[in-house]
């Protein structure tokens, strides 16, 4: 269980994340929703250690992660797929997968296991990642995050720039990883409708604060919330 308590992060003079608490249980998906600038990306970047919080605490099954270096937080089992995926264009598809496996040594997933999940990647294994389409990049970055067999997956806008059919496919994958691998997912999305379709819990952020933390069907039923923050 990933537990975030009272996390507060400043970006210069701006308080981007303001006392946010969320939880992600094993095999569950918590969707973090909200408009541009609500602090969703900063929340993920603070959890994975890319930016330092001003206050608050992040822990995984009781072990404190706050203030550990980024690469040590990954090694605790928290994988962060940044906005846009962060595919390394200069490396081949397979090299992108292999670099994520190095620290895990024998326990990492082999590239073949990832190709079984995303067969499209197998056809392109020796090509530079710069040649991939948007959907393939998203598959590679999610597959790459799975290589080290994380317990928690932080996903930043996996639907960004994808066609609706692909978005549904990616959401389906995410649900499947939660169910079959027991991974807890913190899913940051602007596309609230598709995120809520697979989530177990929905958290709405506005100006860095949590304004709602409910079951997906409750969120979807709340007309005021929907109009004000979710855009559907």
């Amino acid at each position, binding site marked *: 269980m990933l537990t975030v308590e009272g996390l507060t992060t400043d970006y210069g003079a701006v308080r981007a994340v303001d006392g946010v608490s969320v939880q992600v249980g094993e095999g569950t998906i918590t969707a973090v929703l909200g408009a541009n600038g609500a602090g969703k990306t900063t929340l993920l970047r603070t959890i*994975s250690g*890319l930016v330092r919080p001003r206050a608050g605490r992040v822990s995984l099954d009781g072990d404190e992660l706050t203030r550990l*270096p*980024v*690469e040590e937080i*990954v*090694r605790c089992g928290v*994988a*962060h797929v*940044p906005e846009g995926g*962060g595919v*390394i*264009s*200069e*490396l081949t598809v397979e*090299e992108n997968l*292999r*670099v*994520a496996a*190095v*620290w*895990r040594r024998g326990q990492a997933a082999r590239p073949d296991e990832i190709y079984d999940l995303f067969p499209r990647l197998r056809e392109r294994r020796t090509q*530079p990642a*710069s040649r991939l389409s948007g959907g393939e990049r998203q598959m590679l970055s999610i597959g*790459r995050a799975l290589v*080290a067999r994380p317990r928690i997956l932080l996903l930043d806008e996996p639907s960004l720039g994808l066609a609706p059919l692909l978005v549904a496919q990616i959401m389906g994958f995410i649900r499947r990883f939660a169910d079959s691998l027991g991974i807890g997912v913190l899913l940051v999305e602007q596309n609230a409708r598709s995120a809520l379709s697979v989530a177990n819990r929905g958290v709405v952020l506005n100006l860095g604060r949590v304004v709602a933390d409910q079951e997906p069907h409750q969120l979807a039923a709340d007309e005021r919330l929907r109009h004000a923050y979710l855009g559907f």
Partner: protein
Amino acid sequence: MTRFLDLTLSGISTGAVYAAVALALVLIWRATRVVNFAQGAMLMITTFIALAVINATGSYWLGFVAALLSGLVLGAVVERVLIRPVEGGPPLNPVIVTLGLYTLLVAVGGMIWGNTPRSFPAPFSLRGYRVGGTTLLFTPNDTFIVLIVLALALGLAVLFRATPIGLQMRAAAFRPEVARLLGVRVGRMFTLGWALAAVAGALAGVLIAPSVFLGPNNFDPILISGFVAAVLGGLDSPPGAVIGGLVLGLALSYVSGYEGSTLVPLAALAILVIVLMVRPTGLFAATRERRV
């Protein structure tokens, strides 16, 4: 015709040294986006250490190994102690640090070893091969220089292409933040990059020292040539650095042979200016893939 052959052969030999210097600059640029202006002074120090070991033990090869090992340590220490604190700040800061380090090392070298250039031994004969009745401008020692630089280039290629540590170094160089998110200890990769670069520089130092002599400022022209070679190769690409070094070595050898050696530094700078005007990404840029 013999003259052309002579100039070609000696161009390949000096080009190999330029290639080693260019590799040193390229490895650091790739890893940390810093042009290491202290490289010439660093390889001066390691070459002096080699000479001290040679004089103390009487063995060239012990001195050779001492140069490479001291390069490894010096490169790692410089990155960890001087460069790390200014990383992530304004890009000019590490450049100023390397300029300061250059001044410091040259001064320290002069204080310890004096400013009079000293001769440095070569491991193999400096008498040219005899073919038929003529003596070529290419010596057994030149053969050694070309082979050892080739071995360095191949070793680096294997390291980067075929080992997990090389893969992590590339990932850290291309996308440091993403690499960290994948569990790569990026700081260590940068330290290793600097250490390997300094080894390449140390190698260049001991290889060229027999022909330029050893003094605090004697390697400055080599560093300029190495820099031009690195730019020629795209500054980003180790194979480009090797090819750039060889091309520059040949070009300067012809200039020196046909036009006179006084024109060589001018020609090197002219080539630099022309390359920057015509192909700013270098002749062998691996950078096109990066623009995507």
